[in-house]
């Protein structure tokens, strides 16, 4: 992927993101001129840039969206929620395409039908005062409508039809003075397997005039594959045709052939014959303006004996034209094009258009054209006359489309092309090219000039120009990989510095090593401090506000609520709370599950809520708050709450609890059962995804991120979840110890003390070993047993006990050997190990060994 493309995608993604956010706001807060203008500009930028890369489907989709936004911002189309959704859909699609481009897996051909369909839907929403000629989605629309082409010829596919068919179509259309619709239907090769029957559909088209079918391959290898090209002509209106082909969107394109184009095609076919007819008398009558006489003559000629069916048709059509003022005017413009510029313009467009708008449209067309040419000129000038510039072919294509082949044919270098443009621009009066291009040109230019200079995306100049318009705070754009690399370096530094104390110790044993050892220790302490600060600083860079993740939720909630016919309000608080970027995804997943559960099972249907005396609209509050080194996230709903009794019964049925526990468990304990493994199954089947999302899965996710989750609920009032997550992947103080010759670690803040006792000090109370320590009873757990390690072969009387506290009291862990405390950067478990809840992570030791760090809470609950 070229660097330029890389930059384009990077910056366009920013445009997409900003546009998405604004659309969300528009959706919830309603119309805002500012917001609409900004979204328009975002899309305009994307469209312009994508054009440079000649990615037509993307351009036409962006174009459609831009047009809709244009009509929204000038007020001709009213804003509503479904329009926002539709535009968001378009943005999502563009984003998907970017993904494909980045991974190199793009298949641009497959994009075209998607683009056509979506762009069609978008355009259908535009309430236009002036409509574009193409009701359909022809590929040329993107480029040509910007510089409304002065070509009035009918589409090539129409002209390629046999003249008999053409005349048939023309006659039918001119008779009712309606434009002709041409449908190019190319069924998917596998359409039969969807029960489709394309020819039946085609032959049943309303107001069908003609149908042409062509084989699209040389030979048919499989009778059950469809390889046909079908062209249908109909004089039905746009809606009728769209409805008829509704099931086949993506397999066809339709375009209307305006009356003017039909007249022009007619004339091309009939000119010779009609001018010569009746020794030129017919033509003379026409030139004299005597339409009646001309028509009568045509009638006579057409009924003659030797006349072919085609010639007869020509005569009939000529009559029609003579008998209609509108058609006559159209023929005038074809036969005498030099006369009237404004007539030319109206000849292209269907007669439904308000003809009073001609003149402003005309200058608008020129203005648009000149703007584009100026843009292209600047791009060309930046190429340093290098014809191998990747952008040059596209620019040339655009300019050729605007100026015509004749002007650009000889231009094989950027400078030559630039000259051609300059000549033309100087010839026409410079029409207000000053103000508008500033906006349009700057972002485009910056993107293309930025690429050759930098190979990475670090570029202050590229972002400063468009950013100026938005007055964003001064920021530096940095590649995420660089930050990750920094973090890795710091990790290694941390580990490396940990070896210094060992070295210091070794130095002590050498002769005269004491002094050296002291110095090492002193320096170690400096390096230690610096490392900690460095790590802190880099982690700060990685902090992003949780709004990063929260911003997707309103839409999610809205759509889910809509699907379930519930009314739900999502209130978010504390979105500025910051969180480590790498860990933020780990928090998103559990939150989404909790939100879904809340929407699905928590909030009741509006009617049920009414019956319960609640407002019809349920509320979900999502809040984030920093607390020490943690972030506390709460999801609160005012739904129907969780019924502890029901949970108890279900747990019993699933064999999670014993019968006697039905009576002994408190309400609090019963509620906590939802976190039990094996609890989540079909009872949790959601209408939304058909899949159960269990709380034990959520708890695992939270634990993997190093956090904990709590739940409270009251039947009829609502449920509240609290997630406590560490804010960063910070350095932990760990105490190491050994069991079965393996090293383990435990958070130092859990450790109360370390004691060595003899076997005799251990007593048994109700079959559980305990230790009497200074008049406290400390329940003991043998780590070997808990970790399912082989039985110790140690015969010694001495027992090492690590006294720990898990927030609910002191416990003792029987281990083999103590070791010292160290600083480590804890990494979460991945892959196969991830399912083991009793370890919270791993750390790398100075000598390369891997340390497993115990999750005390989990370990103690595995009894």
């Amino acid at each position, binding site marked *: 992927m070229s660097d330029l493309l890389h930059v384009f995608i990077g910056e366009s993604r920013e445009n997409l993101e900003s546009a998405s956010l604004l659309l969300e706001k528009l959706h919830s807060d309603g119309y805002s001129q500012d917001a609409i203008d900004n979204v328009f500009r975002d899309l305009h930028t994307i469209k312009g840039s994508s054009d440079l890369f000649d990615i037509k489907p993307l351009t036409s989709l962006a174009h459609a969206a831009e047009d809709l936004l244009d009509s929204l911002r000038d007020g001709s189309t009213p804003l509503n929620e479904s329009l926002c959704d539709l535009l968001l859909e378009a943005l999502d699609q563009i984003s998907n395409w970017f993904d494909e481009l980045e991974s190199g897996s793009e298949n641009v051909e497959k994009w075209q039908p998607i683009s056509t369909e979506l762009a069609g839907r978008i355009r259908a929403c535009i309430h236009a005062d002036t409509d574009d000629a193409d009701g359909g989605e022809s590929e040329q629309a993107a480029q040509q409508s910007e510089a409304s082409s002065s070509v009035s010829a009918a589409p090539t596919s129409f002209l390629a039809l046999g003249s008999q068919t053409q005349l048939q179509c023309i006659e039918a259309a001119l008779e009712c003075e309606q434009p002709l619709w041409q449908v190019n239907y190319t069924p998917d090769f596998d359409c039969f*397997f*969807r*029960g489709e*029957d394309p020819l*039946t*559909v085609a032959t*049943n088209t309303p107001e069908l005039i003609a149908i042409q079918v062509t084989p699209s391959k040389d030979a048919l290898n499989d009778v*059950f594959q469809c390889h046909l090209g079908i062209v249908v002509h109909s004089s039905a209106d746009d809606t009728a045709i769209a409805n008829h082909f509704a*099931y086949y969107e993506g397999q066809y394109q339709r375009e209307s052939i305006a009356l003017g184009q039909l007249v022009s095609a007619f004339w091309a076919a009939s000119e010779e014959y009609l001018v010569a007819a009746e020794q030129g008398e017919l033509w003379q009558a026409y030139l004299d303006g005597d339409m009646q006489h001309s028509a009568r003559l045509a009638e006579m000629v057409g009924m003659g004996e030797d006349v072919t069916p085609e010639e007869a048709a020509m005569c009939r059509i000529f009559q029609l034209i003579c008998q209609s003022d509108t058609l006559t005017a159209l023929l005038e413009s074809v036969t005498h094009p030099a006369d009237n510029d404004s007539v030319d313009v109206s000849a292209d467009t269907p007669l439904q258009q308000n003809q009073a708008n001609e003149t402003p449209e005309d200058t608008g067309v020129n203005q648009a054209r000149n703007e584009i040419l100026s843009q292209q000129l600047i791009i060309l000038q930046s190429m340093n006359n290098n014809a191998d510039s990747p952008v040059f072919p596209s620019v040339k294509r655009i300019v050729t489309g605007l100026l015509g082949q004749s002007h650009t044919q000889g231009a094989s270098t950027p400078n030559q092309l630039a000259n051609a443009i300059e000549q033309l621009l100087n010839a026409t009066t410079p029409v207000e090219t000053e103000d508008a291009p500033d906006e349009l040109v700057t972002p485009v230019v910056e993107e293309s000039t930025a690429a050759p200079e930098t190979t990475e995306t670090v570029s202050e100049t590229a972002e400063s120009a468009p950013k100026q318009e938005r007055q964003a705070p001064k920021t530096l754009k940095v590649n995420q990989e660089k930050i990750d690399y920094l973090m890795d370096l710091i990790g290694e530094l941390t580990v490396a510095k940990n070896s210094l104390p060992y070295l210091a110790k070794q130095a002590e044993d050498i002769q005269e090593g004491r002094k050296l050892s002291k110095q090492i220790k002193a320096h170690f302490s400096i390096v230690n401090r610096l490392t900690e600060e460095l790590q802190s600083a880099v982690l700060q860079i990685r902090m992003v506000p949780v709004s990063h993740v929260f911003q997707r939720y309103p839409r999610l909630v809205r759509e889910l609520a809509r699907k379930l016919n519930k009314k739900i309000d999502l209130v978010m608080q504390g979105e500025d709370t910051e969180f480590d970027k790498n860990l933020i995804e780990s928090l998103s997943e559990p939150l989404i599950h909790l939100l879904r559960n809340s929407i699905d099972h928590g909030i009741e249907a509006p009617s049920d809520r009414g019956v319960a005396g609640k407002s019809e609209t349920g509320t979900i509050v999502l809040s984030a708050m920093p607390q020490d080194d943690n972030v506390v996230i709460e999801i609160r709903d005012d739904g129907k709450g969780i019924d502890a009794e029901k949970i108890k019964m279900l747990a019993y049925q699933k064999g999670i609890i014993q019968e006697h526990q039905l009576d002994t468990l408190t309400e609090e304990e019963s509620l906590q059962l939802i976190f039990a493994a094996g609890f989540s199954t079909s009872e949790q089947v959601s209408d939304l995804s058909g899949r159960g999302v269990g709380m034990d899965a959520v708890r695992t996710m939270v634990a993997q991120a190093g956090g904990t989750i709590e739940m409270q609920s009251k039947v009829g009032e609502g449920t509240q979840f609290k997630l406590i997550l560490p804010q960063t992947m910070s350095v932990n103080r760990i105490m190491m110890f050994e069991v079965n010759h393996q090293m383990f670690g435990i958070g130092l803040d859990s450790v109360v003390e370390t004691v060595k006792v003899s076997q005799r000090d251990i007593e048994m109370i109700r079959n559980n070993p305990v230790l009497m320590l200074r008049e406290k009873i400390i329940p003991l757990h043998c780590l070997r047993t808990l970790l399912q390690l082989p039985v110790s072969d140690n015969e010694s009387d001495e027992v090492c006990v690590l006294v720990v506290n898990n927030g609910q009291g002191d416990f003792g862990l029987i281990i083999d050997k103590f070791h010292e405390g160290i600083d480590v950067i804890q990494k979460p478990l991945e892959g196969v190990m991830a399912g083991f809840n009793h370890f919270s992570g791993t750390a790398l030791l100075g000598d390369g060994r891997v340390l497993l760090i115990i999750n005390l809470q989990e370990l103690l609950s595995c009894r």
Partner: protein
Amino acid sequence: MATIHLIDDSATMLMSMEMLLKRAGYDVIKSPDGPSALDTLASASPKLIITDLNMPGMNGIELIKNIKQNGKFRFTPILMLTTESQQTRRDEAKQAGATGWLVKPVEPEQLLGIVKQLVPAA
């Protein structure tokens, strides 16, 4: 006599569509849900299948996927009944192999028009 197979969990819908189609000259078989429809299809050979989307248990799209696994029906046109707002489900249905859809409430003329196109010989 061409047979049309209707699947809907609403007995009212089934009955009203049946009446309409029978009067137009088609034979009709009905099923109240996906599983029983699949049962019926083991021995029946309808020329057109019309199924509701929102049904408890197996929904319309899953039913369509199941039907399409049976080679007997690889070319059989299938229509799905949906509500106005379920646009994305329509695309899903097409991907699952459906021919098209009908938006509830269905106008009699509309239903007959589409059926006539999909089942040329009554």
